[in-house]
């Protein structure tokens, strides 16, 4: 017997054991010493966090903690900032790169569209290109935008509108002050695709055949908790079945099965993705989602329809997504792929637990001998710990593309922010209340820095009395701890 078998069997035990393990509270020690210990610790700690840190803050004043740390850690990825990537065409010389970051506020969970769009942290990247040839040069560029951060606003609960790229207007591309049109793209995979059509583990493409089988429940034993069940196309490793109900998609592959709550007269639909000429449609019926007792029931096939995967995916496409129909097919395939990976969860586009990966594609033309400034403006979203009080956020800058730009001149990063920087992977210098970094020598690396609002500038004060109280509180705590240890032994 494998430990996994035992673990699985343990997973099936009755709920009251689990409830007992969750709610169990220790009762070995009396409440008095603990209450006293807590009071002493509270006194000690409350004084400690009000004590000025001996380190100097970047602006030259002593800094103190002003807010408590998060009550719980809920890590949320941001968007790593990437420089534009030249994907096609060469000959342009990149004379300089300037990245200006402006972080004036601390991000939080954005619960409505307005607060999300009003978040004002921005990045402005300026690249100076020169065309040394005697012919006009045209290059294609890509700007990866990553995924919407998990804390971004993604759904309007009133209108049920889904936003995959609500902040699209904040991405702007200019060449010598003139706007450059850019095409927004998206995919369901986790990174920028290397090549079209190879983005998913089960190799779906737009023209993959999808067969839709529609059945009606014509006979069903009268039970309150009846479910229609169906097995996946187990004989075909590459064939995926998808069951749709109320806009949510449940995949069935291999030898897995799925259950749908059903009633007499309901319509049952299953889509088989890929060619499976011998697939045998077999709905059966059970009572109870856990015990799954077989019950009498019949589902009669009323329609069979063949379509392409693009047509299938279009059923869930919405023009407001901001994603093209063609890209949506890949976003949809990625979502199904992810769902297979996660085993039992369904893909619900009205409440997605994932985001598509996004990027922009655009074209620049530089006249012979000309020097031009290409400017990209975009919002800046850090990774952060969301909690009752989030205090730190981490900004990441992907400098891989800098290597490919082969910059001949200066390459600088400037950060303007009132929030103190507490950590960084490279050494910034401070000038005119700005953090400045020379990026030369850092190409190919990943730059990150942390801003923390837990620390803020505060004038010095007389902490003598507090020091004595802290010492007394600590001593009382030590005595109580000693007493508790003696009682335990």
């Amino acid at each position, binding site marked *: *017997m*494998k*430990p*996994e*078998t*035992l*673990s*699985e*069997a*343990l*997973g*099936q*035990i*009755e*709920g*009251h*054991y*689990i*409830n*007992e*393990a*969750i709610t*169990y509270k*220790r*009762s*070995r*020690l009396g409440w008095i010493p603990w209450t006293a210990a807590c009071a002493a610790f509270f006194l000690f700690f409350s004084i400690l966090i009000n004590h000025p840190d001996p380190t100097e803050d970047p602006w030259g004043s002593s800094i103190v903690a002003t807010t408590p740390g998060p009550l*719980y850690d*809920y*890590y*949320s*990825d941001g968007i790593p900032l990437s420089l534009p990537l030249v994907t096609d065409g060469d000959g342009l010389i990149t004379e300089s790169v300037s990245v200006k970051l402006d972080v004036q506020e601390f991000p939080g969970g954005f619960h409505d569209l307005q607060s999300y769009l009003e978040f004002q942290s921005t990045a402005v990247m300026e690249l100076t290109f020169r065309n040394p040839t005697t012919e006009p040069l045209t290059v294609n560029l890509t700007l990866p935008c990553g995924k919407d951060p*998990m804390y971004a606003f993604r*759904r309007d*609960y009133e209108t*049920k509108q889904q936003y995959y790229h609500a902040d699209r207007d904040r991405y702007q591309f200019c060449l010598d002050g003139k706007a450059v049109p850019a095409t927004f793209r998206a995919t369901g995979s986790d990174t920028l695709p290397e090549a079209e059509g190879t983005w998913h583990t089960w190799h779906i493409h737009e023209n993959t055949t999808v067969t839709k089988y529609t059945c009606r429940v014509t006979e069903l034993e009268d039970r*309150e*908790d009846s479910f229609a069940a169906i097995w996946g196309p187990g004989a075909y490793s590459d064939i995926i079945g998808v069951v749709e109900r109320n806009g*949510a998609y449940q995949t069935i592959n291999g030898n897995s099965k799925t259950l749908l*709550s059903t009633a007499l007269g309901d319509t049952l639909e299953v889509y088989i993705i890929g060619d499976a000429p011998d697939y045998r449609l077999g709905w059966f019926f059970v009572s109870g*989602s856990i015990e799954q007792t077989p019950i009498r029931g019949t589902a009669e096939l009323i329609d069979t329809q063949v379509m392409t995967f693009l047509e299938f995916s279009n059923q869930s496409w919405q023009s407001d997504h901001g994603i093209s129909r063609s890209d949506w097919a890949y976003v949809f395939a990625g979502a199904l792929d992810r769902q297979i*990976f*996660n*085993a*039992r*969860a*369904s893909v*619900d586009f009205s*409440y997605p*637990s*994932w985001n598509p990966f996004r990027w922009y594609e655009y074209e620049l033309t530089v006249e012979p001998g000309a020097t031009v400034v290409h400017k990209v403006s975009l919002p800046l979203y850090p990774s952060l710990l969301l909690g009752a009080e989030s205090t730190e956020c981490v900004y990441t800058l992907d400098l891989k593309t800098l290597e490919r730009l082969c910059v001949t001149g200066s390459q600088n990063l400037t950060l303007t922010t009132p929030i103190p920087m507490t950590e960084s992977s490279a050494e910034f210098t401070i000038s005119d209340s700005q953090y400045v970094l020379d990026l030369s020598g850092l190409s190919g690396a990943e730059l990150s820095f942390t801003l923390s609002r837990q620390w803020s500038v505060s004038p010095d004060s007389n902490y003598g009395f507090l020091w004595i109280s802290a010492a007394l509180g600590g001593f009382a705590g030590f005595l109580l701890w000693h007493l508790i240890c003696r009682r*335990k032994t």
Partner: protein
Amino acid sequence: MDDKGLIELFFARAEEAIAELDRAYGRLCRSLSGQILPDRRDVEECVNDSYLNVWNAVPPARPNPLKTFLCTVVRRVSITRYHHNTAAKRDSQYTVSLEELDGCLSGPDTPEAAVERKELTAALEGFLDGLTRENRVIFLRRYWFADSYSQIARQVGLSENAVSVRLVRIRKDLRTHLQKEGFL
């Protein structure tokens, strides 16, 4: 919001049900999933998927208590993700707790494993009923929740060493119990 209110939200198919569920039990779910999965992103996805599972199950199910049902779902989804992610690396508390159990088990898998699992669950429940309340909690916190020794020690008010010794004895008793029941 209490469980009754949450269940009513799910029955009403109210969109805020998920948000309220997260507010009430998000920390517990992330903690449980985090014991099994080392990557915080995986944890986040598993917790979200668990909420979707609850959304799909309620109605018709009306779990009581909801917290226990949710924990069961989170554990199942996290373990599924775990098996996808890892090739027996000691990278989570769950791996370590599985390795400990390995020591009290032997014998190959049989084709009747699926059938046996139900009987095994019944045997485990019999074993748990025979334990003291404190030992039962220690065992489940370790092998159901995959808590670390220090976390268990904090919950039950014992030292880490005492928890370790208790678990050795419980595992020994479990082996004897499973042998008696014919599983080993």
